[in-house]
């Protein structure tokens, strides 16, 4: 009662409740818990297949990859990319496809917003859950990579943080897509036109420097390039100062995506 009285005095912009975000996050956790065995299997197996095929299969043919100072085994090169790439997929899937289902198909957002949860808190809960999913897959694939000797430095534990940041950035992006998508067809397009090229061309499977010179700036502008770059540095223990630019990129992108998603959802739902 005291809380609601306080808010009656100070409504508007800064009306924010942690419990609104927590409520939305708990909804997702409740749904996840119901089928976690199946979910975890999916989280683990797909990246493991990719990692096994690319790292051990193709890796045998490729041998070493030239990096700035020296060469590293292809499998070691590619593992952080796959870890972070999967973090992207999970956040993107959860916050675009999953969010669209909740928004349009099942109209769950209407119910949530009829409770005292603000749009900003709803968006934060959605993106927060996207980041949680990203963290789960990051931890699982990272553990697999470490167990198979693809991680060379204890700094690799920092990749968990990169997984979360990747989840927040692509969660925001996914939510924007969900907010403006007229149908699930457009979301399919997000996966094929955005997700897939990012997964392959962000320095994940080969160094950006192997691309034609004119394509390289584009690759540098891609959002997945930056978490992959930081994750690779953590995995090899080869940290350098210019990684801070990549960190800045992620923070700025997230800071743009999140309020934009909130605004677009508001425009779609609060009419």
């Amino acid at each position, binding site marked *: *009662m005291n809380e*609601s009285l306080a*808010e*009656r005095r100070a*409504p*508007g912009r800064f*009306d924010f*409740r942690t*419990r*609104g975000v*927590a*409520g*939305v996050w*708990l*909804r997702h956790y*409740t*749904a996840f818990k*119901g089928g976690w065995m199946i979910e975890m299997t999916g989280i683990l197996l797909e990246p493991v297949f990719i990692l096994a095929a690319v790292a051990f299969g193709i890796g045998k043919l490729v041998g070493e990859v030239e990096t700035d100072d020296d060469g590293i085994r292809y499998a070691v090169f590619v593992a952080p990319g796959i870890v972070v790439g999967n973090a992207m997929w999970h956040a993107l899937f959860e916050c675009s496809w999953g969010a669209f289902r909740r928004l349009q198909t*099942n*109209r*769950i957002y*209407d*119910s*949530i*917003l*009829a*409770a*005292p*949860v*603000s749009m900003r808190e709803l968006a934060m809960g959605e993106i927060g859950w996207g980041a949680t999913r990203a963290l789960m897959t990051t931890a699982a694939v990272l553990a697999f990579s470490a167990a198979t000797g693809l991680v060379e430095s204890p700094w690799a534990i920092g990749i968990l943080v990169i997984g979360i940041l990747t989840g927040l950035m692509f969660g925001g992006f996914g939510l924007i897509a969900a907010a403006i998508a007229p149908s699930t067809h457009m979301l399919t397009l997000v996966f094929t036109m955005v997700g897939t090229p990012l997964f392959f061309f962000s320095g994940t499977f080969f160094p950006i420097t192997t691309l034609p010179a004119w394509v390289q700036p584009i690759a540098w502008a891609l959002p997945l390039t930056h978490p992959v770059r930081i994750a690779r540095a953590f995995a090899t223990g080869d940290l350098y100062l210019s990684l801070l630019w990549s960190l800045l990129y992620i923070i700025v992108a997230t800071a743009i995506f999140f309020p934009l998603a909130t605004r677009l959802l508001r425009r779609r*739902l*609060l*009419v």
Partner: protein
Amino acid sequence: MTANQTANNKPMVRAAGLAKKFGDFSAVDGISFEVRPGETFGMLGPNGAGKTSTLRMMSGLSPVTSGELEIDGIDATTNPRSVRDVIGVVSQHDGLDPDISVRDNLTVYGFYFGLDRGMAGRRADEVLDFFGLRARGGDSVDDLSGGMRRRLTIARAFVSRPRLVILDEPTTGLDPSSRNRVWEQLAILKNSGVTVVMSTHYMEEASILCDRLIIMDEGHILASGTPDELIHEQAGAEVAQVRPEEGQRDSVQRQLKDSGYEISEIGAIFTVRGENGSRADLSGITGARVSYRAANLEDVFLSLTGKDLQDE
């Protein structure tokens, strides 16, 4: 129900000049009404009357274009969230969550209101019991019948112990027996003292459940009062039904027009309303069978708009 009892002389809902525009279209065109604490207040009108827009504004789901709107003393135009703290909402689309169990639909809803796990669970079980859904608690929402889904949606609105419950066409799309079941439960809840605002286009629902109602059409309030008052004022105690004999329609229509009474034609039958509460004297009409029946809200609506309430 003990909280704020001193404030019970204040209206639970107060709308003054309330308007909702979508571009140039006026969905709600400056309506004013008050809902008293503890009463069940109905909005009766056809589709497009502005009922849903009004209820969405009251629920804080739709910004108010202009006018005043207060819910339980809270200004809903500037502070919709505080309104949502004290209300429960049942929208036309159930908005139930198919990814979690029936019971979790209720506990999770409690989380949105800031209930902790224990409290949310207890409230979930209480309302499941009340709405006769306890045995289905572990099921998926998708396995429920339409009537059960609707009851679960209503149950969800009660998890937070609201002071006001807003229901948008609570029985639309239900079969008659499910509808009866919902009515029964709404009647019990009404007796528990909660204030209810509901929209409907079923006149039977409005007359059974509502203490007072407004009749809306095209964004305006046409009349307001208790169901009995409205019927008495607008349609009289009884209305005449005039069924023309074969080939006599035009002649009967002429005679009725000459009689000076208010008439309307639905299907092949003319409905004739009397004046000043007495029934129409149609003894002189030839070429038709005349019978009388008790007037109802449908007649009120017909009298006010010349339209049938069920028109889509």
